[in-house]
């Protein structure tokens, strides 16, 4: 019972982090058809900025979080103009994989040059230390905070996509970019805005998840497989499907590590193969990328 509780709390926390980071990847993949392997690198950059803000400059956690998101979005927008625009919707997945892997390598080398190869931490404020009681059990405040932020992200994105003008245009462009453009939707601007949104979410996840996915220069390469797996299972461009996929994979992975630790990531990938074998376009029928 104790173990089950631990698995659920840690699994849901982990799943929320996976969701926040992967959702940006999912939307850019659904809309722009870009397999953006540099997405994890963006999350890593934000984590390093937040870590520097907290440890180097002594800023409060919340300020560091906002600064990291702003910095990452502003730093990657030129990349969108210069690089990504050339490979949008390209039928050549290989070119996309190579360009974004190349970008990842450059960011990894840059981060190492600036911050060194050691593990970086983002110290938590006092408000996030300690535990909070839920009924008879108690869970760490940080975990509760991450879960709450994840839930807020799901709701916020749902509202943004279902209830706003931007969301309607975005969904139209995901479904049929050509028709959307013909109807007068300025897809170029939409792409830029979506890219910024995706990067911002990656940044948020990178900072929030620094406890679970430790910050070091190889972060960008080590975890991108996880994020891609979530997108593949959730279906590109499908927000609720992605949330379900992230939670399911997070819980499966955590359960595997709790119950049979010596098998490592085996269960994560076994689940991935089983699901993708049965539902090749993702559990919830996203668009085939």
């Amino acid at each position, binding site marked *: 019972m104790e173990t089950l509780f631990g698995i659920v709390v840690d699994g849901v926390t982990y799943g929320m982090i996976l969701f926040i980071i992967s959702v940006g990847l999912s939307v850019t993949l659904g809309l722009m058809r870009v397999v953006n392997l540099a997405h994890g690198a963006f999350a890593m950059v934000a984590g390093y900025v937040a870590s520097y803000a907290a440890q180097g400059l002594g800023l409060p956690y919340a300020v560091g979080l906002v600064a990291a998101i702003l910095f990452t979005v502003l730093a990657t927008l030129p990349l969108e103009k210069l690089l990504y625009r*050339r490979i949008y919707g390209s039928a050549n997945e290989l070119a996309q994989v*190579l360009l974004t892997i190349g970008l990842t390598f450059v960011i990894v080398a840059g981060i190492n040059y600036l911050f060194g190869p050691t593990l970086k931490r983002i110290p938590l404020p006092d408000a996030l230390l300690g535990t909070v009681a839920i009924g008879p059990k108690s869970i760490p405040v940080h975990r509760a905070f991450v879960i709450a932020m994840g839930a807020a992200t799901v709701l916020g994105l749902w509202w943004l996509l279902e209830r706003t003008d931007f969301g309607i245009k975005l969904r139209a462009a995901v479904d049929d970019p050509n028709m959307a453009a013909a109807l007068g939707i300025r897809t170029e601007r939409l792409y830029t805005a979506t890219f910024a949104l995706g990067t911002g979410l990656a940044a948020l996840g990178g900072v929030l998840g620094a406890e679970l996915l430790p910050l070091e220069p190889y972060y960008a*390469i080590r975890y991108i497989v996880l994020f891609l797996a979530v997108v*593949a299972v959730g279906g590109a461009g499908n927000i609720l499907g992605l949330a379900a996929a992230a939670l399911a994979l997070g819980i499966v992975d955590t359960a595997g590590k709790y119950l049979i630790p010596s098998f490592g990531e085996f269960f994560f990938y076994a689940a991935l*193969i089983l699901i993708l074998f049965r539902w*090749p376009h993702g559990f919830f029928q996203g668009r*085939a990328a």
Partner: protein
Amino acid sequence: MGAVATGQTPQAAARAPRLRRALGGAVVPLLAAAGLAAFWLFPNDLGLMTRIAATALYVLSLDLVLGFGGIATLGQAAMFGSGAYAAGIAAVHLVNDPLVLLAVGGLAGGLVALVTGALILHARGLTLLMLTIAVVQIVQEVVNKARDLTGGSDGLSGIEPSPLFGLFRFDMFGRTSYLFALAVLLVGFLVARRIVRSPFGLACRGVKEDPLRVAALGGSPRRYLVTLYAVAGVFAGVAGALTAVTSGIVGLDSVSFSWSAEALVMLVLGGAGRLVGAVIGTVAFMTIHHVMAAIDPFHWMLFIGLFLMGTVLFLPGGIASLADRFIKGNRT
């Protein structure tokens, strides 16, 4: 027939100068000559050069899958590692004839490719990419778990092949190893070229260009791709076995996601879709890597990252296409 085999329209083939065809025929003798010249010129680097030859065979297998079948994969190391471990385990427990070990490796690589290929090749795009990654991760976990056989994270050692043909011992300077690896690479290259130019190879190209049309003509795209994947798996398995036999050890990194990605980088560096591109790319990558990684692995990553981006943006065909442009007078 010849026009299709070189991947051009008949008109372009008719215009292609004789020089190109002459170069095409001379590729294998040139490779052999370059390999032997390197043997005399760099007697102190035979270990590295042996590794390059074995890796070139591995990248060649990726070229078959990706360049000729259009299957974007990040899991080729699953077959390489299976071949390496199968040969290594066989060498420790059963036989130690180097040629038999290569056969064992090829069989293992082919079997793994056949089984996993039949499972995953119905998918496309990102899903397929993810499935190939998942396969390589699972194979790695299995190898890691089977400590009794594979040595787990310590690696498998104690592979001592008997003399080649009962005549040539594997000496400590690596001379036999290098010449053996070079010979296997050349044979592999010839076999791969034969496959690529066969009706089966052409059918695979057809699937890459337009699977719907192949299906409409009565072929089964998936069956072609699974067969091609299995054949390439044999090549990767032999390459793994070759590495195991010549180096005497097999490690977990031989069946890792990053080893798959490195193969992809080497292939793109050289130029996918042409066999000689795989060899050129491997030699270039491994040599530069050897020189630069000795200085600082992160500088190396910066270099290779900028290089990859530059290739996609400015030179989509890789190094091998430079020669084309030169010969064709820069028509593209």
